Each structure stands twice: as structure tokens, then as C-alpha cells.
């Protein structure tokens, strides 16, 4: 699925950088019913992970009350140049990933 990642392309070593990740997902709560009364099954993202050069730096569990197309923003310290990898895991075997690179001077 489509994802929008905002990571500064360049940073100074030791800088605190903001990372923002927006992904597309319906986040169906599992509490709603159709017009004829059938329950709409739950379909949400349950876990988000961010790895910075293979080291996990941020993880979040997501729940049914979180809006569609979840948007997460968090901070880390720029240590070295490399790659940030993002992974979303959810119901019905849902899995999606994205990555961004950063140059640290």
C-alpha cells in the first residue's frame, strides 16, 4: 500500500530528528454493522516498527480506535548515515513496508 515518509535527507551527528510516517489503511474497527445487520469484520494495522540501520528504534501497537490512514510521528538521534525501514503489520496477514535514507555528517 502507498506510504508517505518524511525523514530529513541530511542531519548533523547528534541532532534530534523528527520522523513521520503516514500509510494507507482502512482501520475497520470490527464494531460496525452493515445496513442488514451483519458485523463488518475487524481489519486494522496492529503493529508498526521502525528500524535505523537494522536496529529497532521505535515500535507501536495500534488498536481499533485509531483513525484510518494512521499517521505516526516520533523522534530519534541522528547517529550515522544509512537507511530507515518502516514496517506495518495487521489483520488478515497484512504487511507493508517502506524505507528512507539519511545522510549524517
Amino acid at each position, binding site marked *: 500500500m*502507498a*506510504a*508517505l*515518509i*518524511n525523514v530529513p535527507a541530511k542531519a548533523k551527528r547528534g541532532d534530534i530528528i523528527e520522523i*513521520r510516517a*503516514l*500509510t*494507507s489503511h*482502512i*482501520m475497520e474497527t470490527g464494531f460496525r454493522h452493515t445496513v442488514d445487520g451483519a458485523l463488518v469484520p475487524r481489519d486494522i494495522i496492529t503493529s508498526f516498527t521502525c528500524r535505523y540501520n537494522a536496529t529497532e528504534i521505535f515500535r507501536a501497537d495500534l488498536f481499533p480506535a485509531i*483513525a*484510518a*490512514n494512521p*499517521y505516526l510521528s516520533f523522534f530519534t538521534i541522528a547517529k550515522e548515515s544509512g537507511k530507515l525501514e518502516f514496517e506495518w503489520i495487521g489483520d488478515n496477514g497484512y504487511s507493508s513496508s517502506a524505507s528512507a535514507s539519511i545522510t549524517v555528517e
Partner: protein
Amino acid sequence: MIFWRAIAAATLLAAAPALLAGEIAPEARRSGYSFMGPDTRAMQDDDTSNPGMLFVLDGEALWTKKTGSADKACADCHGDARSSMKGVAARYPAFDKALARPVTLDQRINLCRANHQQASALPYESRDLLALSAFIAHQSRGVAITAGDEPELKPFVAQGRDLFMQREGQLNLACTNCHDDNFNKRLAGAPITQGQPTGYPLYRLEWQTLGSLERRLRGCMTGVRAQAYDYGSPELVALELYLMSRARGLPVETPAVRP
């Protein structure tokens, strides 16, 4: 008192001779953006936080995807959308000569699918149709709206205007009662806007998804407890056309974010 009122009315008439009562002067037209809070504005302004951009990305992928029995992609005829589709959405709904009536951008996409791609029509409000129209309209971001300028459209703009002015539903309200006469005030805490359709299809936080202008209009009709027109009905298209002509000169914002 009556004397001053008469002077005020005379001044208004002298200042805006072409305008009819209750209509908004061109220089006073404001996008819904200007009625929003700083958080929602920030969300729209940054393309990496604007959830509408997710649909634009999907639309970009669909633009180059071959489909239908003609096995053609949009890009096979139209090329790079960045140049070929620039300004197109600002002119829609536009007059279709073969059908002798105005068609919306969504209808144009489906006409293209039927006539040139030999593909089935995408249902209204389906993800693919919204993604394609968002991608196309996004190419016009910043372009001033000129829809309704074609001379053939005149009767349809007039029809849309009549519908805009016509009271309907159990609450017996016309669009104009809120969006011409009472914008800038509040309705149950929410600001009443001028109803300028500058950013469609747009991401509405209440919907948690992208939606078309027709969906928004149907929502308003349900709100005044009227029977909403069907998607693609001539009445909705005429209303859409009138609203676009009423927003003449405002820049396209697609994909906008609204509360």
C-alpha cells in the same frame, strides 16, 4: 432607519450591479481552507502529512496501468499527466458535445474507460475512481477555476443556480441560506463556509477517506432532510457546475483536507 437602509441597499447595488441578491462578490470568495483551524491547515499544507496524497500516489500508479480489452493505459493516449492534465480539473464539469450535456471529471474518466479502454465503469466513490480523479485534479493545483465558461453550459449553470436557491427538505432550507447568507457563522460549533468546491476530491476527517463533491452535496441534502439526488444525476452535475462557476478564480487545492 429605513432611509439609511435604502442608502445601504443602493450602495450595494451600485457596487455590484451584476450580482443578484445574496451572491458573493468575486473578491470576497474564500476557500474552505480559510475557515479551518491551524492543525487542519498544517495537515493539508504538508504533502507527507496530507492523507489525500496517498490517493494521488495510487492514482499515479493507475494512470500508467493498462486496463480493459483495449489493453491501454491512460498514459498511452494522454502521456505525462503533469503536462497533459494541468488545468483540466479547473475546467470541469465541462460540456460534452456527443452527449449534449456537462460531464464531471469522474464521468469523463468513465467515458474514457468505456470508449477508449473498453473497460467497465468504475463505481462512484470507489477507491480507484477517487484515486484517478485526485491524481488528475492534483495536476491543476494552484490553477484558477474557470469551469462554466463555455457558452453551451449557460442553461446548465442556470439550472444549478436554481437548485442552489431552491428550498428543500423537512428543514426547508436552500444551499444559499447557509452558504451565501450565513457563512462565517457557526452551526453547532462548526464554521459555515461559503461552500466553494476548490479541493475535490478531498480528504474529510469525518469520512476518514477521500470523497467527491457529489458525496459532500448528498451529505448536505441529507442534513436538511431532503431526498438526495443519485450520484451522476443531471441535478447533481448542474449543482456541481454552478458551484464551480461560483468559485471562479479561486485556485484548485486538490487534495484538500477538511474537518
